[in-house]
C-alpha cells in the first residue's frame, strides 16, 4: 500500500488530510480563480485534477480513505453545464451509492462530499474548502 501522506501526527494538533477531486473544466478553474484573486483557503485540501467529476470512481474515494485521507471532496460543474453533457449526473448517481457504502463501513457520512462549483465561483470554492476542512477537523482523524 502507498505511504500515508503525512507519516506522523500529534494528537494535540490534528492536521486534517483532505483530498479533492476537481473537474478540469469548472471547479479546477475555480481554484485557479481563487488563487489569482488571492482568496485564501485551507492548505489541508489537496486537489487532484480530473477530466470530469464523472471520472471519479467510488474506488478512488475509498482508496484515499484507506490510504490516509480523513475526508474526500468531489467537485464538478453545475448540472446542465458538464463539458461531457452528463458526466456530473453520473457522478451524482455514483455518489449516492458511495454514501451508502461509507455508512455501511461505519464512517461518518460527512467525510465525503460532492459540490457543484463553476469556473466563475472562486469564492465558492474557497468557502467550500474551508467549510469542509472545518468539518473534518471537528470529526477528527479517521481511525
Amino acid at each position, binding site marked *: *500500500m502507498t505511504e500515508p501522506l503525512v507519516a506522523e501526527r500529534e494528537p494535540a494538533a490534528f492536521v486534517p488530510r483532505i483530498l479533492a477531486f476537481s473537474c478540469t473544466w469548472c471547479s479546477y478553474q475555480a481554484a485557479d480563480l481563487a488563487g489569482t484573486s488571492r482568496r485564501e483557503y485551507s492548505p489541508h485540501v489537496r486537489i487532484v485534477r480530473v477530466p470530469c467529476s464523472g471520472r471519479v*470512481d*467510488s*474506488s478512488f474515494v*475509498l*482508496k484515499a*480513505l*484507506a*490510504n490516509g485521507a480523513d475526508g474526500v471532496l468531489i467537485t464538478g460543474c453545475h448540472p446542465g453545464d458538464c463539458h461531457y453533457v452528463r458526466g456530473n449526473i453520473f457522478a451524482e448517481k455514483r455518489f449516492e*451509492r458511495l454514501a*451508502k*457504502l461509507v*455508512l*455501511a*463501513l*461505519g*464512517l461518518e457520512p460527512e467525510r465525503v462530499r460532492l459540490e457543484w462549483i463553476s469556473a466563475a465561483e472562486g469564492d465558492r470554492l474557497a468557502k467550500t474548502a474551508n467549510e469542509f476542512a472545518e468539518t473534518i477537523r471537528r470529526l477528527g482523524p*479517521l*481511525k
Partner: protein
Amino acid sequence: MNLEPLIETTRAYSCISCAKCTGRCPLARASYELDRDGGYSPRAVVSKALQGEIDDHSGMIWDCLTCNACALKCPSDVDFPGFVRQARSKIRKERANGQVRLCTGGSQLSEIANLMAERDLQQKRMDWVGDLQVAVEGETLYFVGCLPYFDLVFPDVVHTQTIAQSMVKIMNAAGIAPVVLANEVCCGHDKLWTGEEDVFKALARKNAAMIQERGVKRIVTSCPECYRTLKLDYPEFVDFNVEVVHSSQFLSELISDGTIRFKDEPETERTVSYQDPCRLGKHMRVFQEPRDVINSIPGLRLEEMTETKAESACCGTSAFSGCDKVREKIRLDRLSQAKSTLVTACPKCQIHFKCTQHTNQTISPEVQGIEVKDLANLVAEAMEAHV
C-alpha cells in the same frame, strides 16, 4: 527473482510439458476459440519458470482464474494455481504492482477490504438480519462474507443478502441461532490470490481473533471462497483452527437427518442446472452435497450440463480480475448449457453471471432469461413452515 522455493512447493519441477493443463483450461479454450493466435498457456508459464523466469509481461500470470481445473488433470501433480498465487505475491513484493486488472466493482471491494484491514471500523452491516435470530456467542457461527457490500456495489445486479437471510432462516428452523459478527471483515481471499499477502494476513488476524473470542466450534459459510480461505488458508497463515463447512454441506446434513423438511406439494415442477463453483468443487472437492440438496427439493430435477464437476468451467472470473470478452464467453457458454434455472452455491458466481446478463448487448433472450439462484434460497423457499 529466486524461484526455487516456488518451484519446489508447487512441484513445478516435475512438469513433463504434456500440455494437458492447457487442454483443460477454460481460459485457454475460450481464448483459442475467439482468436486462434490468442494462446493462453499454463504449460508455457511453467516452462518459463523452469528456465528461471517469471513472465509477468505477457500478463499470463495475472490472467489465470486459479480455478484448479488444470491441476486436477496434471499427471505430475503440479499445483498451478498455487504457483500463480505465489508468483503474484513475489512480483508485488519485489518489483511492482503487477498487472492485476480489477473491474470497477472489484476495485471498490478491494478498497473496502483495505479499509477493513487498515482501519478500526465500527461497521453497520447487519440490516439484513431483521427479525431473524442471531447470537453474539455460541457454537455455530454463520460467516456472512461480503454479501452486504456486494449489494451496495452491484445494486442493479444482485441481492445477495437474501442468501444470508435464507441461511439464517433455515438455521433458526433447525433450532440454531448462529453467531453473526457485527464487525466481520472480508475473509481476504481476493487479496491472497492477487498477491497482497500482507493485507490478507491483517484481515485474517482480525477475523480469527473475533471468531475465537466467541466460543465458536463450527463455521458455516455461504461463499466457497470464504470456505476455502477459512478452512485451508487461515490455519496456514495465522493461528486458527476451527471446523468450517460450506452451506451446501450444512444443508445436506440438515436434510438427510430430517431436521428440516419440505412442503409436500411442490408449487412448480422444473428442471435445473448446477454450476460448480471453482473453490467449492475443483479446490475443495465438494461435488456431491449441493447435488444431493437439489435432488431432495420436491419439484426440482437436476439435469447435468455437458461439462460438470471436475470437468466444468468456472464462472470465468476470480477476485474480480481481468474481466474481458474471453471471460464473458466462458460465462455465456455456461449459461447456454443451462436449463431455465442455473443453481449456484457461490454469491460471486452469481454476481458475474448476472452482471454479464445485465450488460452484454449481444446476449440472446433465452440466455438472458435464465434465472441464476443460490441453493440456500431454493431450500428456504421449499421449506415447510415450522411451528
